[in-house]
C-alpha cells in the first residue's frame, strides 16, 4: 500500500479530528432486539452495527450438529444502504470471509462443550459502515453473546491499529483504511490476555508491528470498558455497589 497524501495535519489531527492515540466515540446498547436471545447495537464512530444472538437452539439441518460441542454459525452482512453507493444485498466474497474470521475470533471465548448437539447463531448486520466494521461487529457480538447468557471464558473486545503517515495510529477509519499505510484489526480477550484475531493489510517492519499490536490491544481494553459498562447498565442499572 502506498500512501499518496498526508492524513495527519501539522497539529497532529487526523482526518476526523482525532489525535493518533484516540478512539472514536463508542456507544453500546444492550438488548435492542426482543426476539433474539441476546442483542446489542454498537455505534463505533460512524459505524452503526446490530448484533443478534440466538441459542443454544436446535440445529437445522440436523446433520450439521456435533456430538461433543455446539456449532457456531455467524453471518456478517452489510445492508444495501450502509455505504454511499448501494451495496448488493447478496453475500459477497468479502462478507463470507469476514463472517468466518468473526466466528473464529469469538469461538475461543465460548465454552461450546457445555452445549453439545446445539447451535449458536450470531447475526451481525451493518447499518452504516465507516471502516473497522469487523472490529465493531466482534465487540457487539461479544456483548450480545453475554446478553444471551451463553457460557463464556471471557469477553472479546476488538480494535484496529495501523500506520498513517508513518505513524502508528489507533482505530483506523474508512479514509485511513483506504489511503493509509497499514491496517491491523485485533480481537482480544482482556482478562485471559489472549489474541483471537489478528489480520494485517499493508506493510510494517517488526518494530512497527510490535508497536501496532500494543496500540491495538490498548484500544481493545478501552472497548472492553465500554462493553462492561453497557452490560452493567442493562442488568444492574444504577445498583453498582457490591452487596456483602
Amino acid at each position, binding site marked *: 500500500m502506498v500512501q499518496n497524501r498526508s492524513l495527519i495535519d501539522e497539529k497532529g489531527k487526523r482526518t476526523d479530528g482525532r489525535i493518533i492515540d484516540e478512539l472514536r466515540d463508542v456507544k453500546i446498547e444492550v438488548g435492542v432486539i426482543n426476539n433474539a436471545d441476546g442483542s446489542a447495537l454498537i455505534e463505533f464512530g460512524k459505524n452503526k452495527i446490530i448484533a443478534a444472538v440466538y*441459542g443454544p*437452539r436446535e440445529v437445522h439441518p440436523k446433520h450439521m450438529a456435533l456430538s461433543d460441542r455446539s456449532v457456531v454459525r455467524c453471518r456478517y452482512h452489510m445492508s444495501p444502504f450502509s455505504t454511499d453507493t448501494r451495496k448488493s444485498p447478496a453475500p459477497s466474497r468479502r462478507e463470507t470471509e469476514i463472517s468466518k474470521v468473526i466466528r473464529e475470533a469469538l469461538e475461543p471465548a465460548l*465454552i461450546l462443550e457445555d452445549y453439545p448437539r446445539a447451535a449458536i447463531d450470531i447475526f451481525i448486520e451493518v447499518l452504516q459502515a465507516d471502516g473497522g466494521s469487523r472490529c465493531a461487529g466482534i465487540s457487539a457480538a461479544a456483548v450480545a453473546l453475554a446478553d444471551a*447468557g451463553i457460557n463464556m471464558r471471557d*469477553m472479546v473486545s476488538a480494535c484496529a491499529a495501523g500506520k498513517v503517515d508513518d505513524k502508528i495510529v489507533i482505530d483506523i477509519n474508512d479514509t485511513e483504511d483506504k489511503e493509509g499505510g497499514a491496517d491491523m484489526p485485533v480481537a482480544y480477550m482482556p*482478562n485471559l490476555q489472549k489474541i483471537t484475531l489478528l489480520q494485517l493489510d499493508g506493510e510494517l517492519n517488526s518494530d512497527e508491528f510490535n508497536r501496532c499490536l500494543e496500540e491495538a490491544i490498548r484500544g481493545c481494553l478501552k472497548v472492553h470498558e465500554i462493553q462492561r459498562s453497557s452490560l452493567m447498565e442493562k442488568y444492574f442499572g444504577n445498583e453498582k455497589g457490591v452487596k456483602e
Partner: protein
Amino acid sequence: MQETKRKYVIPGDVVAEGNLKPLVNVFRNGNSIIATRIGITESTQDGAKVIPLSGVYFPRANDIVIGKILDHSSLSWSIDINSCFLAHLPAQDVFGRDFSPAQDDMGRQLSSGDIIVARIAIFDRTRDPILTIQDNDMGKIPTGDLIKISPTRVPRLIGKRGSMIQTIEHATSTRITIGQNGIIVVSGKDRDGVNLAINAIHIVEIEAHTSNLTQRIKQLLNVPESEIENDDTQPSIEMNNTQTNDDEFNSNEADKEGVINSNGSK
C-alpha cells in the same frame, strides 16, 4: 446462616481468589475463579458460583417443566420444552408396563397440542431428555393461560419458600403452575384475577433483581397489611427451597427442588 459475599459480574470477571471450589457458571483459571455468565456471585465456604441473569433454558435432570406435545411415534410422544432439545415421554410411562403399541391408542391419553407438566427423568446431554409424569400433580393441564418468562427469573417468581408465588395466588384467587423452563400456566375462575396475576408475573420478570419486590407486588395486588404479616409466617409445604441470605434470588440448589401448584391438589 453461612456468610456469603455477592457482587455483580460479566463473563471473564474474577468471582473469587484462592482455593474455592468452582460450582456453577464459573471456571478455574490459575488461582482465580472466573465467571462465565452475567449475574450475581455467591461465594461461601462450599465454593463460588454465579447466579445467572440471562439465558435460555437448558434441561437438567429432575427439573419440573411444562411442555407442549408436538407428535408421537409408536412408543413415545415428542414434547417441546422450550429448549434446544426435544423431550420424549415414553408411552410406558403413561400406560404402564403392559403397553402395547398395537392395542393402546396413544391419542386417547395425550394428543398434539396438549400442555403437560412433567419431570425430566433422565438427561445427560448425549441424548434428548426423557420425561416422566409419574409424580403428584403431573400430567395434562386441562385449562389456563400460558405465559412465557425468562427461565432465569423462575427462582425469583417462586420467592423465598414460595412466598412470592403464594402471595400472587392468594391475592388473585388463581392457581399458578410454574415450569423451570420458564413456561407458566395461570388458571382461575375469575378472568380479572387471571389478568392481574399475569400482570404481576410480568412485573416480577422485569424487576427481578430489585429489592423489596415482594412488598411492591403486595401493594399492586392490594394485599392488606395484616395479611402481609400472616403470609410471611405461613410455612410452605410444597416448597423445599433452601434459605438464602435475602429474598432477592434463590440459590440454584433451591430451584432444582422444583415447584408445582403451591396450593396443593391437582
